[in-house]
C-alpha cells in the first residue's frame, strides 16, 4: 500500500486550508467532512418528514373508522413514509457517517473520489425532490407500499413516472457513494492500517458498499420494467403477454433483502465501535465480527423469497428459502454474543451513546427473534402482511438503526464540534425513546398475531385497544425526537461550554484514529498519514 500524502489545490492561500467562505461552500464542496455534514443534516430533516407521515398514519389508526384522511392518501402515507425513511433518512445518515468517519478512521486525507462524492449527495437530493413532488400530483403519491408491486402500482396516477425516476436517481447516488467507500478503504489506508486492523465501522461499510453496488442496479432494472409495462407495451408482469407479476416480486426482493441489511450492517459497525469504548475493553472476537458481517452479507443474497412465502411458490422453494433464512441467525447470534461478551466484566459507564447501544443490543435481538419466527414458512402464512411483520421490521429499524444513528450522533458530536453535548437531555431523550418505542411497536405484535392486516386505514373493533396504545407510544416517541434536534443544535452552538479533549472519551484513542486528531476535527485531517495505528479494538 502506498503512503497517501494529500495535496490540496489551495493556490490562493497556502496557509489557510479552511473551508470556502459563504453559502456556496455547501454546494461545491468536495471535503468529506462538509459532505458528511450535508448528508447528516439532510437525513435528520427527512427523519422528521418521514416521522410526520408516520404520525399521520398513527393518528388515523388511533380509533377504528375513518377519521382524518381518505384511504388512498393513507396508503400514500404508508408508501412514502417507508421510501422517505429508507432512502431519505437511514441510508443517507449512514453515508454521512461514512463520509465523516471512514477517512478519519483509516488515516486518509479525504475520500478517494471527492468530486463524485459531491455528486452522490446532490443526486440523492434530486431523487428525494422528485419523490416528494409526487405528493402534490393528480392521483396522489404512490400508494402501493414501498415495494411498488404490480399490478397495483400501475394504477398510480401522474406520480408514477416521477417515482420511477426518483428510484433511478437514488440508485445512482447510492452506487456512486458505495464506489467511493470501496475505493477509499482499499486505496487510502494509512501505512500499517491493514484490513484486519480497521475499526469495525469501516469493515461493515466496506461490505455494505458491495451490497449497494450489487443491488441498486437490480432495483433500477425492476422499476424500469414497471415503466415500460405501463408506457411502452411490454409484458414483463402481465400474464396475458406471458409475463408474471411474481417475477417483479423476485427481482424486488433480490434487491430488497440485501437492502435491509444495507441499513443494519453499518448499525452493527457503529455498535461495535461504541460498546468497547464504554466497556473499556477491546471488542470481543474482532475477527469473528468481520467474518459474521461477511456471512450475513452473503446470506442476504440467497434468502429473498422468504418475503414471498404466501405468493404461491413451489414447495421446494418454500423449503429452501425457509432453511436458508434460518441460517442468518447464526452469524447474527455471533454478533450479539460478541457485544455481550465485550461488556462482560467491563468497567462500564452509561453515557448516552452507550445507553442507546445497549438498548440496541436488547431490542434488535427482539426484532431478530421475530424474524426467525417468520422464517418458518408454514407459520408465516399467519403473520404475512399483518402488523406482526410491521412490528418485526420496525424493531430492527427504529430501536436498532435509528437508535444507533443517534448513539453515533452523541458519540461523535464532541469530535465534530469540539463541544460537549448536554448529557442530562441526552439521557432524557434516551429514556423517553426507549420506553415509548416499546409502547409504540410491542403491541403491534399482538395486533398482527390477532390478524390485523397492514396498510389498512380502518380496522375491526377488536383491534381498537392496542392500536390506541400504539398510537400514544408513537406520539411520545415522535415528539421525544425533538430533544435530539435540540441537543444537536445546542452542541453546535457551544453545548455545555466544557471544552472537550482530543480523546473526548476515556482511552478512546486506543480504539480508533479519529480520537487522535484535535476536537473539533480540523477541516483537513491526516494530510500526512498517522505514525501509529491503534490496536485496542481487535
Amino acid at each position: 500500500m502506498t503512503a497517501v500524502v494529500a495535496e490540496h489545490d489551495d493556490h490562493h492561500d497556502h496557509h489557510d486550508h479552511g473551508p470556502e467562505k459563504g453559502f456556496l461552500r455547501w454546494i461545491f464542496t468536495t471535503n468529506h467532512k462538509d459532505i458528511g455534514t450535508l448528508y447528516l443534516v439532510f437525513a435528520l430533516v427527512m427523519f422528521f418528514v418521514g416521522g410526520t407521515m408516520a404520525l399521520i398514519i398513527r393518528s388515523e389508526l388511533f380509533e377504528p373508522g375513518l377519521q382524518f384522511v381518505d384511504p388512498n392518501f393513507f396508503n400514500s402515507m404508508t408508501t412514502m413514509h417507508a421510501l422517505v425513511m429508507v432512502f431519505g433518512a437511514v441510508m443517507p445518515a449512514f453515508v454521512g457517517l461514512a463520509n465523516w468517519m471512514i477517512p478519519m478512521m483509516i488515516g486518509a486525507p479525504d475520500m478517494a473520489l471527492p468530486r463524485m462524492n459531491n455528486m452522490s449527495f446532490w443526486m440523492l437530493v434530486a431523487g428525494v425532490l422528485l419523490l416528494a413532488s409526487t405528493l402534490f400530483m393528480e392521483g396522489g403519491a404512490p400508494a402501493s407500499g414501498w415495494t411498488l408491486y404490480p399490478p397495483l402500482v400501475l394504477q398510480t396516477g401522474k406520480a408514477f413516472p416521477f417515482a420511477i425516476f426518483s428510484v433511478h436517481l437514488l440508485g445512482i447516488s447510492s452506487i456512486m457513494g458505495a464506489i467511493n467507500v470501496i475505493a477509499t478503504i482499499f486505496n487510502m489506508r494509512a501505512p500499517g492500517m491493514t484490513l484486519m486492523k480497521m475499526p469495525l465501522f469501516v469493515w461493515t461499510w466496506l461490505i455494505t458498499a458491495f451490497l449497494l453496488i450489487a443491488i441498486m442496479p437490480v432495483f433500477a432494472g425492476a422499476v424500469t420494467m414497471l415503466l415500460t409495462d405501463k408506457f411502452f407495451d411490454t409484458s414483463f408482469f402481465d400474464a396475458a403477454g406471458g409475463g408474471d407479476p411474481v417475477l417483479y416480486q423476485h427481482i424486488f426482493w433480490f434487491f430488497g433483502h440485501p437492502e435491509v441489511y444495507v441499513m443494519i450492517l453499518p448499525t452493527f459497525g457503529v455498535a461495535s465501535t461504541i460498546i468497547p469504548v464504554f466497556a473499556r475493553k477491546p471488542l470481543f472476537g474482532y475477527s469473528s465480527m468481520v467474518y459474521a458481517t461477511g456471512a450475513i452479507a452473503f446470506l442476504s443474497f440467497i434468502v429473498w423469497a422468504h418475503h414471498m412465502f404466501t405468493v404461491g411458490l413451489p414447495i421446494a422453494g418454500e423449503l429452501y428459502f425457509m432453511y436458508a433464512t434460518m441460517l442468518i441467525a447464526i452469524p447474527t447470534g455471533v454478533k450479539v454474543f460478541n457485544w455481550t461478551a465485550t461488556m462482560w466484566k467491563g468497567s462500564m459507564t452509561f453515557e448516552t451513546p452507550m445507553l442507546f447501544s445497549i438498548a440496541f443490543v436488547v431490542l434488535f435481538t427482539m426484532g431478530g427473534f421475530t424474524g426467525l419466527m417468520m422464517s418458518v414458512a408454514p407459520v408465516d402464512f399467519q403473520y404475512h402482511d399483518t402488523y406482526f411483520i410491521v412490528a418485526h421490521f420496525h424493531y430492527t429499524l427504529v430501536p436498532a438503526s435509528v437508535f444507533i444513528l443517534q448513539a453515533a450522533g452523541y458519540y461523535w458530536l464532541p469530535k465534530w464540534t469540539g463541544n460537549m453535548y448536554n448529557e442530562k437531555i441526552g439521557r432524557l431523550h434516551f429514556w423517553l425513546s426507549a420506553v415509548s418505542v416499546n409502547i409504540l411497536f410491542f403491541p403491534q405484535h399482538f395486533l398482527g398475531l390477532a390478524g390485523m392486516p397492514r396498510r389498512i386505514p380502518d380496522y375491526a373493533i377488536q383491534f381498537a385497544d392496542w392500536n390506541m396504545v400504539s398510537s400514544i407510544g408513537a406520539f411520545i416517541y415522535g415528539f421525544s425526537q425533538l430533544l435530539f434536534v435540540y441537543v444537536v443544535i445546542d452542541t453546535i452552538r457551544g453545548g455545555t461550554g466544557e471544552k472537550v479533549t482530543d480523546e473526548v472519551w476515556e482511552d478512546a484513542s486506543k480504539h480508533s484514529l479519529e480520537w487522535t486528531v484535535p476536537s473539533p476535527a480540523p477541516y483537513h485531517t491526516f494530510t500526512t498519514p498517522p505514525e501509529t495505528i491503534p490496536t485496542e479494538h481487535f
Partner: protein
Amino acid sequence: MSTNGAYYIPHKAVWPVMATAGLMLTLAGFANHLNGSSIGSGMMMVGFVVFLVMLGLWFALQSTESESGMYNHGVGISYRMGMMWFIFSEVMFFAVFFGALWYTRNLSVPWLGAGEGEFISGPGRSTATLWSGFEAVWPTNGPGKVGGEFEPMGAMGLPFINTLLLLSSGVTCTWAHHGLLAKNRDQLIKGLLATVGLGFLFVAFQATEYYEAYHEMGLTLGSGIYGSTFFMLTGFHGFHVCVGAIILSVVLFRSWKGHFSPENHFAFEAAAWYWHFVDVVWLGLFIFVYIM
C-alpha cells in the same frame, strides 16, 4: 504520471451539481412527457443539453489535470477501482433482464401452460381455468396473444454478423492498446479508428434489424414477453454500445492530441474495459436471446 507526487484532492467542484441538475431536468421532463404534458419534451431536451455540456467540460477538466501531472499513482488506482465497480454495477443491471428471461422461459411460461389438474413442478396451482388451451412454447407472446402474430428473430444473418463485428472490435481495441504500450502512435490511432468504426457499424446493423422486426416480422416491444425481453435486452445493450463508442471516440481524439503515455492512460483503459464488458454482454445475448 507523477508517481511520487501527493494524492490530489480538488478543493471544490462545480460540475457535479450541473450534472445533477441536467439529469434531474431530463428525467422530470421525460416523466412529464410520459404523462402527456406538452412541456415535457422541451424540458427533457434542455436537461439533456445541460448534461452533455457538463460531460464535455468535466472530461476536459480531468484531461487537463491529468496532462499537467496532477494525478499520482494513487489517484490512478482510485479511478481504476471506480471504473471497475461501475462496470460491476452494469453487470448487475443486465443480470436483471437476463434473469427475467430465464424466469419466464423456464418457470412462469410453463406454469401458464399447465393443463387442467396438471401440477408441473410448479407452484402447485393450475392456471388452466384462466388460460385454457394455452400451449407453453417459446417464443411466445402469452396466452393473450399480446401484440398479434410475430416472427421470432433468428440467430443467423445480421445478429451473427454483428457478433463477428463486435468480437473483431475487441481485437482491434487490444491491438490499439499494444500500440499505446509500444509507443506506436500510428497503431494506436488505427486500432481505435477501427474499433469505433466497427462499433458504429454494429449499431447501424442493429437499427436495420429493428427496422425489419417492426416492419416485416410483426415483432415489436409489445409482442408479449418475447418482444419485451428481446427488445429490452438488445436495446439496453445497443445503448451501451453507443455510449462505449462515444467514449472510445473521445479516447481516439485524445490519442490524436498525443495525450497518453505507456504509464499514464487511465482513460484508454477505462474505455477498453467498458468495451470488453459490452462485448461479453453481447455474447450472452447472442447465446441466450438469439440461439437458444
